[in-house]
């Protein structure tokens, strides 16, 4: 009668996470930067990391997600992902995720217009019905396609979504890292705090710890296999381990393709019915 199976509920500006970068226009947001020296240093470290990855225009990449449960059983999700870089740091990127597998959800697509503090605009495309449906993006802390990634995890490099606090330096695997805590400014987050490790050589995020609403460690994300695309850095392996349920999810990106000539019309809801 009504097919409302929404295998991919709201998702955020997406797997962007680490794909997404910040703005060509580098104007600090005073509300996000704060006014104490620790807050401002934390913001500046994060801003430098973010801004090293800008100017890519648009990107396309294939992704493979392997979900492993506590018993070691694995399931796989494959999707393609394209992003249009935002014009400045006051808005978010636009992104489009199209699923290839499992086969029963092949062709399902999720279009997101990310915002900084307001809820994102999101549309889901259900290929069996040819239906485009605007969906709620309230569900920030929900699981993305049954994985250990929450929707909001995909926007952790949106600089102005957080306030910051600089913790100090730490030696990890022979690299000197800046350690920064950040606190969500947007509503409906599942976290009270995130702790991130940013290296001092290429200024990339290497590890993030997520603390739940009770303040307990929930998940740890390790980002690796960073590659340099003419000055734009992208991690190609993102491994999330849940400290509370023992499950893990690894997200692996293929080679990125930048500056494909995409424009705003490629991210309008009208495009969803002609993706394939």
């Amino acid at each position, binding site marked *: *009668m009504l097919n409302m*199976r*929404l295998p991919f509920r709201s998702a955020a500006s997406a797997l962007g996470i680490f794909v997404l970068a910040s703005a060509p226009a580098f104007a600090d947001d005073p509300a996000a930067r704060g006014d104490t020296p620790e807050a401002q240093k934390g913001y500046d470290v994060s801003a430098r990391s973010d801004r090293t990855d800008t100017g890519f225009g648009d990107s396309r990449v294939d992704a493979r997600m392997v979900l492993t449960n506590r018993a070691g059983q694995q399931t796989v999700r494959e999707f393609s992902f394209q992003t249009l870089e935002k014009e400045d740091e006051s808005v978010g990127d636009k992104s489009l995720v199209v699923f290839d597998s499992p086969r029963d959800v092949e062709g399902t697509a999720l279009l997101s217009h990310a915002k900084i503090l307001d809820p994102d605009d999101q549309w889901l495309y259900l290929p069996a019905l040819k239906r485009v449906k605007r*969906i*709620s993006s*309230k569900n920030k802390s*929900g699981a993305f396609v049954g994985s250990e990634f929450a929707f909001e995890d995909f926007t952790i490099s949106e600089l102005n979504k957080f306030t910051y606090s600089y913790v100090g330096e730490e030696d990890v695997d022979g690299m000197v890292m800046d350690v920064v805590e950040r606190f969500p400014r947007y509503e409906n987050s599942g976290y009270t705090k995130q702790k991130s490790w940013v290296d001092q050589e290429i200024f990339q995020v290497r590890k993030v710890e997520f603390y739940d609403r009770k303040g307990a460690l929930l998940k740890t994300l390790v980002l690796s296999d960073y590659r340099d695309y003419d000055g734009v850095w992208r991690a190609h392996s993102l491994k999330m381990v849940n400290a509370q349920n023992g499950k893990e999810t690894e997200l692996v990106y293929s080679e990125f393709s930048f500056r494909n000539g995409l424009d705003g019309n490629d991210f309008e*809801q009208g495009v969803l*019915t*002609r993706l394939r």
Partner: protein
Amino acid sequence: MRVFLGLCGLAAAFAPTLSVAGEWDVGGEVAGELRYFPNDPLYPGQFEHFQPSISFQPDIRWESDDRKHQVVLIPYARIDAQDDERTHIDLREGYYRYNADGGWSLTVGAVKVFWGRTESRHLVDIINQTDAVEDIDEEDKLGQPMANLTLINDWGTVDLYVMSGFRTRTFPGVDGRPRFALPVDTDAEIINRDWGRGAVDVAARYSHYIGNWDFGVSIFHGTSREPRFAIDGANQRIRPVYNTITQGGVDLQYTQDAWLWKLEAIVREGHGDTFAAAVGGFEYTLYQIFGSNADLGLLAEYQYDGRDEDFVLESFGPAFAAPVTFADNDVFAGARLGLNDTQDTSLLAGATVDTNDAFIGMFVEAQRRFGQNWTAELEARLFLNADPDNAAYPIRDDDFITLRVTRFF
């Protein structure tokens, strides 16, 4: 021989471009289905309780490397052990699409199109004929031959359609369930237009969003997909009658927090007096209930339809009234549970109550994936409290349960 060699040469000349360029994606699905009708049939000829069938749907796609050219071929076949009319084939989709720079595309071939927002009834959706022999929910559609021009702009999307090759609605045969007291003879259709199936239909839709509002405005002129029914007593059958109609539609959704507010409304000319119909309501989702990953969606919609219905049609000519509908003054309520687990387990249940006579149509649908390539679905449809005056009275004993197992390739 020379012609043959010439053709080979031609093929060889094109082969490199055809075989090398672009990307092929060949897949599909095969499903085994068993329906069970617990009640004895009401009408002579109908099968008794069990209805096994299998269906095939290959899915062949090609896209050029620059993504400008797309070819899609999705044939469909069902083989049913009980109902000859349910054994059928269709071209669900079979088209070529050109995606131009600058946001326009042209699609030519058999296409499926959906318009609309609401869940319990799809009023605005009018392009494709319903494959009613598949299920009674009107969500299975036959491919419609057309040319479709799509213009995507930052001020909205415009779709223009020119269609011909009218598709008549499928119906269960003499053996089939659920059906009316007399079977619909799908070979005896009456199309009240010059050129019959070859007549041309036209349609247009504009859709866009502003802030939290999504909306569409549409117009259709052509052969009604919805037939009226003429009782042919001499031959103990019903003949479907298709008239020319013009229908305007609007569809709206307001999305705020966890609320989706939805409305669809139409005005139709050509089925007796011009009438309006509407369906509207909400969907509210509770996320991560009881600290789990599961979501619970709650839905309610009201269905209004102002048409004059003709239950017994004497004339095969111009329409003096409109086709029978179930949804004239009904309230729908439902719930959707999504576990958001790796198997995408979901459960959907709902009921539509006719506020005139308290007829209740109920359904439950459950679905789960097994492994990477299998899904299982269990569905139940119940017709309760059907009064002799209700359009659903003839199918009052046709409650059924469906188990479907699908393998994807």
